[in-house]
């Protein structure tokens, strides 16, 4: 059963690529069907509840050294994640049928989407680090292909390259982390690792090198920094919005970027060994959360606002992992997948209706034109901002509670981020959906077809009830029962109200931007900083190497040898003048020299 989950999308991707691609509607249908099969199989596995069961085939076997399997691990963590990935994925597949209806490359799109589903489900099911790494890279590849789906647009091609290269940086750290784990414990299998880590004493190599366990943890965390777009490597995610909107929803909001957090939870028992690692993880998460939220307050592109919001929420999850609250992190991952997919699909619906207009200042008044999209978008906004009784409220409070118990500074950052989240989301909602129409396109727009509104409705329903379901699945008890729960509850309601009222009050009747903060609008100049530090430095290095290659290697060594041969040939050519007497003279001189030499040096023979 586990293999069906994994293989259905792969079969779909291969079929569409090789056979079905001229048949546009059938390609889309096959891809949706494959996703539905995965979802059905995931539900069955979830209900069967085979806790910790593994079905694996051995791939590499070097006895006593390394055994790598390709297996499907279905435990509490992965079955829930499977449900989220395939469930949200199914909604988005259906939505994409409507959104991509008129695109000439729809077959290619669905083939890549299926490839992505295969890779993502592979990460979730992976029973060892090596297999996870392989699917991790596959996910990076399909992300690259889908961001660059409209590759004829230079910005999309650039964004795809940027995402791929930045992710490579993180992946390299991840690979080092995996090697470190193998070096320390001699296995990469999650089950065996968990047993040997919990077996009291550390391995000898780690006992001798206390720093190593921190470095291994940081290596693994590097993978998360790249894939989940945490602070130093966050720059690729906003640019990834160049891809089609369903891709942004599925990959760059709901599932793939959450893979980093999922991986952290999977290997948490290793991270846990080093308090320093956890400290760094929590700090990076907190920085990302507030940093991205500040930038989001000044963006004008509807998808970019949501992208920075995604960054901020991922920061929340990573922060929770750093505070040992993995179940809160997974809970927030789950609810976030619901409402962020919903928000992106809502944005997609708007963009589709307005013929690819993404600037919120050219929208306005969509509430009347697109009631279903607007209503579901409002639900998504409320869920994201932590409105009481909706999904985000519960998961965010779980994280805030963990922060309050661990680190008061991080708690403060998280609370401020929550207020900012409410502020920028209500700014977005007020500008795009309320008020007066700001462009002619809005006047003529109308509600999207049912194939797009149906997934919106389903996800909206999940965004409402996800909190209650997830709370049972992840936390097991209502969060307000914990010590300090009441304080967190009231504080989070207060910051939600503050942010929401602030956003609405400032922007409800605004004709243009009311608040100007250049540093936020320019994303803290991070792209410019990277340009100056890394791109230009690398360009300089490249130019130096180019010079060396051109003049030293190419000029002096390669062409130098050729020039040497040519010049010496030219000089020696002068000797062969064609004059017989000159030849005779040389010949005679040679004979005289030989005679002299024989007489001087071979005297003793006579």
């Amino acid at each position, binding site marked *: 059963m586990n293999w069906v989950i994994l293989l259905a999308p792969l079969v779909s991707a291969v079929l569409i690529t090789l056979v079905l691609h001229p048949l546009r509607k059938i390609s889309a249908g096959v891809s949706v069907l494959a996703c539905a099969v995965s979802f059905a199989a995931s539900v069955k596995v979830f209900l069967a509840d085979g806790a910790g069961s593994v079905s694996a085939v051995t791939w590499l076997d070097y006895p006593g050294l390394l055994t790598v399997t390709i297996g499907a691990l279905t435990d509490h963590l992965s079955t829930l994640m499977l449900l989220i990935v395939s469930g949200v994925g199914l909604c988005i597949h259906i939505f994409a049928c409507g959104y991509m209806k008129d695109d000439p490359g729809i077959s290619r799109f669905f083939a890549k989407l299926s490839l992505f589903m295969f890779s993502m489900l592979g990460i979730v099911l992976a029973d060892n680090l090596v297999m996870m790494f392989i699917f991790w890279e596959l996910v990076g590849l399909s992300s690259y292909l889908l961001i660059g789906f409209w590759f004829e647009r230079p910005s999309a091609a650039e964004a795809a390259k940027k995402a791929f290269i930045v992710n490579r940086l993180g992946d390299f750290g991840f690979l080092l982390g995996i090697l470190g784990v193998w070096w320390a414990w001699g296995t990469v299998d999650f089950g065996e690792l968990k047993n040997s880590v919990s077996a009291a004493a550390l391995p000898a190599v780690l006992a001798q090198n206390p720093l190593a366990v921190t470095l291994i943890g940081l290596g693994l965390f590097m993978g998360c920094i790249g894939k989940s777009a945490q602070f130093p490597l966050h720059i690729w995610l906003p640019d990834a919005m160049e891809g089609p909107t369903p891709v942004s929803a599925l990959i760059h909001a709901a599932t793939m970027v959450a893979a980093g957090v999922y991986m952290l939870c999977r290997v948490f028992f290793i991270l846990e060994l080093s308090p320093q690692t956890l400290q760094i993880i929590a700090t990076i998460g907190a920085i990302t959360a507030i940093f991205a939220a500040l930038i989001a307050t000044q963006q004008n592109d509807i998808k970019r606002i949501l992208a920075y919001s995604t960054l901020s929420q991922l920061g929340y999850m990573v922060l929770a992992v750093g505070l040992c609250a993995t179940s809160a992190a997974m809970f927030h991952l789950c609810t976030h997948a619901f409402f962020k997919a919903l928000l992106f699909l809502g944005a997609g619906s708007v963009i589709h209706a307005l013929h690819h207009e993404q600037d919120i200042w050219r929208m306005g008044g969509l509430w009347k034109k697109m009631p279903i999209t607007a209503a579901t978008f409002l639900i998504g906004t409320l869920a994201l901002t932590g409105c009481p009784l909706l999904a985000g409220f519960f998961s965010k409070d779980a994280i805030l509670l963990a922060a309050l118990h661990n680190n008061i500074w991080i708690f403060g950052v998280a609370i401020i981020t929550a207020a900012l989240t409410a502020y920028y989301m209500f700014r977005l909602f007020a500008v795009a959906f309320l008020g007066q129409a700001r462009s002619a396109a809005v006047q003529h727009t109308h509600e999207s077809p049912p194939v797009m509104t149906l997934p919106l409705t389903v996800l909206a329903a999940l965004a409402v009830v996800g909190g209650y379901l997830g709370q049972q699945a992840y936390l097991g008890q209502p969060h307000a029962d914990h010590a300090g729960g009441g304080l967190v509850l009231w504080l989070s309601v207060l910051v939600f109200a503050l942010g929401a009222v602030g956003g609405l009050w400032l922007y409800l009747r605004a004709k243009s931007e009311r608040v100007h903060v250049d540093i936020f609008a320019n994303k803290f100049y991070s792209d410019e900083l990277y340009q100056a530090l890394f791109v230009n430095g690398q360009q300089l290095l490249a130019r130096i190497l180019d010079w060396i290659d051109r003049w030293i290697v190419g000029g002096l060594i390669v062409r130098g040898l050729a020039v040497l041969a040519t010049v010496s040939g030219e000089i020696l050519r002068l000797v*062969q*003048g*064609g*004059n*017989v*007497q000159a*030849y*005779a*003279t040389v010949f*005679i001189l040679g004979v005289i020299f030989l005679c002299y030499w024989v007489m001087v040096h071979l005297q003793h023979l006579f």
Partner: protein
Amino acid sequence: MELVTQITLNHYLTLSGVLFIIGLAGVMLRRNIVVIYMGLELMLNAANLALVAFSRFGVAPNLDGHVMVFFIITVAAAEVAVGLALMVALYRLKQTTNTGDLTSLKF
């Protein structure tokens, strides 16, 4: 007082050397191909003179040198026939006997 009491091997060899050098200089320096040829003949005859002198004044005088000289004269006669024929052919082809104009012997 006698200036020259007896003509010895050294006198012959000196004469032979002088003739050889004159012939060699003619081969190396003259431009007319007929004169070069004459230089070559002079060098052959210088060698003949040395051979005959050794044959008469050598450590064990015998007729071996004479035999050698006859061979050389015979071969030189044949060589003259071939060489002059070549020169005539060359002159017909190039209308010159100046070696400075005959520079096609190169790559």
